[in-house]
């Protein structure tokens, strides 16, 4: 039987781990989106070799499991002089992973801006930078928002993988509780509950942003 009192007793210990998960998630999502925007812009406006190099790197990240990338960075890094502690290593790996996907979402968003909207700005004498800032980016933001929220939720679930390099996050803390108490069902139930709560929080933020953008009539259907 599920023992509620056991779950309640574990809460204080688990909350600290939940905080670690939450901040690594938030940081990797923010840095990942920033990186994704940077990559998308560099590919769009940069020279062709930069575009190709980034395209290849993104294919590498998207084409391998996150676990493999994390191991490569954490255990392979020292061979090339990159020795990181678990938390920075996890944060870096997650940011790179997120940026690769975010950049593809944002690139698709730019492709969805009708060329005529850019031409209209050009005809009025907007510079490229002004067109980007005033026309393209706001339109891209509205189009890509649902996909960004989706990817951010996926990113949360990838934070669980960081437990394998001993980042003291939720999955790690709760596995430890499970192994010590042999109450795996309660522990996993608690774990699922925390992730669900974090995803819901993200969903609320996403829906709030979407509602604000929906009035433009440009949010994705």
């Amino acid at each position: 039987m599920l023992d509620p009192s056991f779950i309640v007793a574990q809460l204080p210990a688990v909350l600290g781990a939940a905080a670690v998960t939450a901040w690594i998630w938030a940081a990797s999502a923010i840095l990942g989106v920033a990186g994704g925007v940077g990559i998308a812009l560099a590919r769009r406006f940069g020279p062709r070799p930069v575009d190709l190099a980034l395209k290849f790197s993104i294919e590498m990240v998207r084409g391998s499991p996150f676990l493999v990338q994390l191991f490569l960075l954490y255990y392979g890094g020292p061979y090339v002089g990159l020795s990181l502690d678990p938390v920075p290593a996890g944060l870096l790996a997650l940011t790179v992973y997120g940026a690769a996907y975010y950049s593809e979402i944002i690139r698709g968003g730019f492709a969805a801006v009708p060329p005529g909207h850019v031409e209209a700005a050009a005809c009025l004498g907007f510079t490229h930078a002004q067109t980007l800032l005033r026309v393209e980016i706001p339109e891209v933001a509205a189009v890509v928002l649902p996909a960004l929220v989706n990817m951010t939720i996926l990113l949360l679930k990838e934070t669980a993988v960081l437990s394998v390099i001993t980042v003291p996050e939720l999955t790690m803390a709760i596995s430890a509780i499970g192994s010590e108490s042999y109450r795996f069902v309660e522990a996993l139930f608690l774990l699922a509950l925390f992730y669900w709560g974090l995803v819901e929080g993200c969903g609320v933020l996403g829906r709030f942003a979407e509602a604000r953008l929906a009035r433009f009539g440009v949010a994705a259907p």
Partner: protein
Amino acid sequence: MTTAAATVGAALSVRGLVKRFGDHEVLSGIDLDVPAGAVTCLVGPSGSGKSTLLRCMAFLEEASAGTVLVGGEPLGFVDTPEGRRRLPAARIRAVRSGIGMVFQQFNLWPHMTALGNVAAALRVVRRLERAEAEARAMAQLRTVGLEGRAGHYPSQLSGGQQQRVAIARALALEPRLMLFDEPTSSLDPELTGEVLNVMRRLAADGMTMVVVSHEIGFAASVGQQVAFLDGGRILLRGTPQEVFRKPRHPRLDQFLDTYLDRGAAMLV
């Protein structure tokens, strides 16, 4: 037609304009003067190059050869003894801001209200204060009869209203020349009328206009100059009476015969 120097007093002059997309020549040496204060209509079958010609006049397409002069200023390229040279971006923007462009697809920015769309260039390009820009934008919306829709987003407006906002946006910087690229082609007949009325009023106020349109009736009644394009050349040019008068050029007759709106042209 000669390839003489641009006519003095022309708001826009096109000389020897050639446009190729790869191996395909869309425009094969166009010479055209757009007289100031008059309406010039470009008509012709699909693929005749009329929209491409208009887009070259706005520098949305870069001509492969030839020149476009706007009020005597070269747009985009200048011919020098060493060959054609591309003008700096700031020069191109300066000339362009004297041209208003209206598109078939309206191309309003969906994240801005009607007022925001019209005020944007005043804020961004002219760097006016918000209040000043919005006051001027409101005046432009009034000229197209849409001051009551200032706070609406494009998605909340009918096609005809969107196109009228787009006209107000193009007028915001007080251009000397307005270009219309099939402005009513994506509107149903009921909404076409309100856009054509705005254009008629602009023409009556003496705006220099170049209109690519399938509205032969509009071309015949409002245009002072009509150019009939076929296969990348101007086949006929003159007043509507001269161009549409019988007996017509057989190619024009053929075009009008296949035309739904030919009844309107018959009235001329």
